[in-house]
């Protein structure tokens, strides 16, 4: 380290003091969670929590819903964004505004009518209700569109001359050039889907359709005084995303920032 003058050293020491203080406040709840989860029975608390209610089933449900949701978003959003970004057709701007306008309305506002629509479709208490409505995501369409617009048109013209079709061009040229956006969209939708609570709470009733968050919330009500088990369940519900986060944290932080700074 280059030698610092005393004033700079004092300043950076003060910074670290506040940052460490804040960091402790951020971490302490997690440490308490793990600590409490190990009290009494130790690791057997985890086994007991895991077997008391079918958490394995909840995990699989969440995984299944998340995978299909993310796959759906990737397909529908990239296709729609491709048409918004590269094609000219009647009603394009209107449709784009229609899409964007739905982002303005928070989900709780239209939750009750959504339930009625699902009931009319006969989808209440099915995987369809958990997955289909979330197989597209307007924000992801927006991200894709912004990126697709930056790909030079000359590339397209050259590809067409080579006899490349529109869909093939998307698949062979546009998507390989869009890897960072694809990763952003995947991460966003994984986190959103994994953590979603209000929707699955409303649209499913039976235990074998419960996703992790709903299962944990019921477990919390049933075992409200069994803190060791509750903390064990919170720990293993939290771990998958924390691990994902630690592995790709730069990308996740960048994704969240992108969502904030772009427009």
């Amino acid at each position, binding site marked *: 380290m280059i030698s610092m003058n005393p004033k700079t050293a004092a300043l*950076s020491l003060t*910074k670290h003091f*506040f*940052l460490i203080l804040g*960091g402790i406040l*951020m*971490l302490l*709840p997690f440490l*308490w*969670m793990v600590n*409490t989860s190990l009290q009494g029975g130790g690791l057997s608390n985890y086994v007991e929590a895991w077997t008391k209610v079918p958490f394995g089933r909840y995990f699989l449900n969440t995984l299944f819903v998340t995978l299909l949701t993310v796959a759906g978003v990737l*397909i*529908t959003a990239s*296709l*729609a964004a491709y*048409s*918004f970004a590269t*094609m*000219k*057709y009647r009603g394009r701007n209107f*449709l784009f505004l229609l899409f964007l306008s*739905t982002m303005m309305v*928070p*989900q*709780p*506002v*239209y939750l*009750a*009518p*959504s*339930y*009625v*629509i699902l009931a009319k479709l006969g989808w209440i208490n099915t995987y369809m209700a958990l997955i289909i*409505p979330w197989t*597209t995501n307007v924000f992801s*369409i927006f991200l894709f569109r912004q990126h697709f617009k930056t790909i030079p048109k000359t590339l397209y013209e050259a590809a067409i001359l080579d006899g490349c079709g*529109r869909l093939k061009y998307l698949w062979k040229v546009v998507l390989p050039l869009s890897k960072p956006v694809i990763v952003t969209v995947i991460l966003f939708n994984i986190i959103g889907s994994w953590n979603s*609570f*209000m929707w699955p709470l409303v649209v499913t009733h039976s235990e074998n359709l419960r996703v992790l*968050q709903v299962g*944990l*919330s019921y477990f*919390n*009500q049933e075992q409200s005084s069994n*803190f060791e088990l*509750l*903390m064990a369940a*919170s720990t293993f*519900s*939290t771990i998958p*995303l*924390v691990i*994902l*986060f*630690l592995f790709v*944290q730069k990308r*996740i932080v960048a994704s*969240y920032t992108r969502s*904030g*700074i772009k427009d």
Partner: protein
Amino acid sequence: MKIRTRLGPYFYILPALIIVLVFRTLPILSSFTASFTDYDIGGFHGFVGFANYARMLSDARFWQSVLNTVFFVLGVVPAGLLIPLFLAMLLRRKLAGKSFYRTIYFLPVVTSAVAISVVWTWLYNPEAGPINQIITALGGEPLLWLREPRGIFEMMLSPLGIHPKGILAGPSLALVSLMLVSIWKSTGYNTVLFLAGLENIDESYYEAARLDGAGAWGTFRHITWPLLSPTTYYVLIMSTIVSFKTFALVYVMTPPPGGGPLGTTNVMVFYLFQKAFDRFDIGYASAISVFLFLILLSLTIVQRRIAGKRVYYS
């Protein structure tokens, strides 16, 4: 061939369009129309004009939820601006351990609201929870936290013999406990946003300020703050909307029925959720939804008006 090219673009957009129309646009429009109907568990019973809105105006529980929501937003939004701004100011420039700090601050952001709520319910537990244990160890009085219906101003002033009532009593300690969790959860996200905003400010401005002999406060006041205003504005709007939407924290930490001690954590989204899914009173719940939407819309417009004059886009 001609037809294919003419219809082509619509095939690309069709899958997304169907989902958006059926599961976004349609329910959004329905919530407006449903608010003028009598719609309950037995189905549709006809249009009732403004009856649901009239009922809302005379519903004390509804107004309590509005007040609680206002308390919540007024508590969470300013703290959610100032603390992250302060942290981001500390984190900008080269600093040892910067990405380590960022990781830690960001952990609560990616953790689910349900898991966080379960953990904090334990931390706040009046009998055995760690927070009260620390308070007792330090010789203080343990508090009821999530079970405390008394307003915090009332609690602070009553030892002095002053007993504020009604709105002046302030949000209940239970609601304040929820606010603290909400602030804790969003700090990392807002910090990262501010950090990105700060890093976007061109270094040459600061060099110019240094040459002019500006002090730290002067530099912040005349350079950082105005140039950061687009980010500040964005964080302001987003955290306002997020605070209005708060549901999981309330639902898990102060579970139904009730919405906390004496209904003091009953916020608008929680109330409309109860009306819609416990009573299946869709018509009335929709009226509350529309009211919520109109508040958010007008807040966004007002914020844009005010910010429009002050936000500096470089």
